[in-house]
């Protein structure tokens, strides 16, 4: 399950580390994977200061066996694939290599695999987000974060569509629609569907399936007020109404100085302060992850 959200600094790594730790502390076998080669620090958040192996070794083809990339962490049941690089010139993985990596991750002997994504809407980031229908989008109660989160979800949605559509014409149309100021006036997925149905009726059904299978989950990080907490519901509602994206609100984590303190101590907050409010909120989110989804039917299953 990927943890993304577009904007940097919203706490993707914080959420990924603590969610992973929460699940591991609950007895699940968890692998936390840092796929942010540009800004790797999941290892630090999990208390592994100097990872011996890393995704970079896999990218550079020094290591072919993904299970061998796993590092132990101070937390039982929780393993890590770090993304530290021996030197800054190391290459980014090719598209094919990335697919291979994800396939190997799926075969790991674990109950949960969490991916900590980088910022932005790079194709690499989007593709990692794509590995699962129900990735987590982290937002903070700030306009910048909200704006980027919508941008991120829209980009992921269109990327999925492009990948799923068969005919070349339709793919071009999707690419066109990704540009918000396109000349055809395609503003929403609904407009796009209408255009696609005219162009290739058979693709309309495929579009509909894609639209319904994409169901990201929202986590509000750094909530300080009831209004911040409610933001998740509002964002979920806006997604449904305006982007045809069925995004479920998973819960929130309060704004807390413990987050900084535990980071200094190189331990996930839920491990250092298992009785803190934040730990309770993470437990709530984890429980929700384990439950079948409430709204609209769909095949349930985590990565």
């Amino acid at each position, binding site marked *: 399950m990927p943890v993304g959200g577009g904007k940097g600094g919203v706490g993707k790594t914080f959420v990924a580390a603590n969610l992973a730790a929460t699940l591991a502390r609950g007895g699940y076998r968890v692998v936390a994977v840092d796929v942010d080669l540009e800004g790797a620090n999941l290892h630090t958040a999990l208390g592994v200061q100097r990872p011996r192996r890393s995704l970079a070794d896999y990218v550079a083809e020094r290591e072919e066996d993904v299970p061998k990339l796993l590092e132990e962490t101070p937390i039982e049941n929780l393993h890590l694939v770090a993304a530290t690089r021996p030197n800054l010139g190391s290459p980014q993985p090719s598209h094919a290599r990335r697919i291979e990596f994800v396939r190997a991750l799926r075969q790991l002997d674990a109950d949960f695999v969490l991916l900590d994504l980088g910022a932005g809407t790079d194709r690499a980031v989007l593709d990692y987000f794509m590995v699962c229908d129900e990735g987590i989008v982290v937002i903070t*109660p*700030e*306009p910048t974060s*909200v*704006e980027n989160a*919508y*941008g991120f979800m829209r980009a992921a949605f269109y990327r999925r569509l492009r990948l799923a559509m068969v005919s070349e014409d339709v793919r071009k149309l999707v690419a066109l629609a990704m540009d918000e100021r396109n000349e055809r006036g395609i*503003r*929403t997925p*609904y*407009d796009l*569907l209408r255009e696609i*149905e005219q162009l290739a*009726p058979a693709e*309309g*059904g495929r579009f*509909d399936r894609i*639209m*319904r299978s994409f169901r990201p989950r929202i986590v509000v990080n750094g909530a300080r007020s009831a*209004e911040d907490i*409610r*933001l998740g*519901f*509002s*964002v979920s*509602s*806006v997604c*449904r*109404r*305006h982007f*045809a994206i*069925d995004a479920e609100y998973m819960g929130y984590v309060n704004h807390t100085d413990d987050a900084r303190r535990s980071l200094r101590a190189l331990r996930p907050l839920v491990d250092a302060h298992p009785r803190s409010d934040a730990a309770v909120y993470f437990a709530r989110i984890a429980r929700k992850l384990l439950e079948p989804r409430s*709204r*609209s*039917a769909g095949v349930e299953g985590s990565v």
Partner: protein
Amino acid sequence: MKPLGEQDHYEALDVPRSATREEIERAYHLARVTYADDSLAGYSVFQEGEAPLLRDRLELAYRTLADADARRAYDLELEQETRRSAPEPEIERVAAPVVSESFGVAMLPPPQVLAKDLRDEDPDEDDTEYDGQRLQRVRVRRGIEIDEIAGVTKVNPTYLRFIEEERFDDLPAAVYVRGFLKCYARCIGLDPDRVAQSYMRRYDERSSKRKRGLFSRRG
């Protein structure tokens, strides 16, 4: 943006067709926050001047769905619309669940008509005086029971009845009554502020008389 005219009232409020009154209440309040001018969740989503339109759309949806009779009539229309568009297989496929329902019921009969009818039979003008009797009449006409209002607003049904019967002596302090009134009004689709203002004028008049009476008896 998806043309608002194509969303049915349920989609506009983001509730399932089977939503209870309470769910509709909750969805409405969330939507009011979501589409407020300073809404964080709406940031970067709405085009200029769009938020007020969205709010009007919500208001209309709420007024219809919160009124039992209007909702029944509306449901019937929706059903007929869906049936009419059903023969086309392509549309039927997308007409099934939550998100895409809208495609099947594209171009609904203009829902304004419903709300307009409502307003006509119950002129909700600036100068309308809302006494207990009037409130009750509106409530009954809209097919809402006191207990339903109590269920949604969590206001004791006895007080709601006292409000309708204008038993001012049995009602609690003005500040509470004002709050109850607003909940009550919102619930039956009236403007809470206007109702509270109008009713409280009567309430104050009456209670000041009462106090004067008390003093004179003592004096």
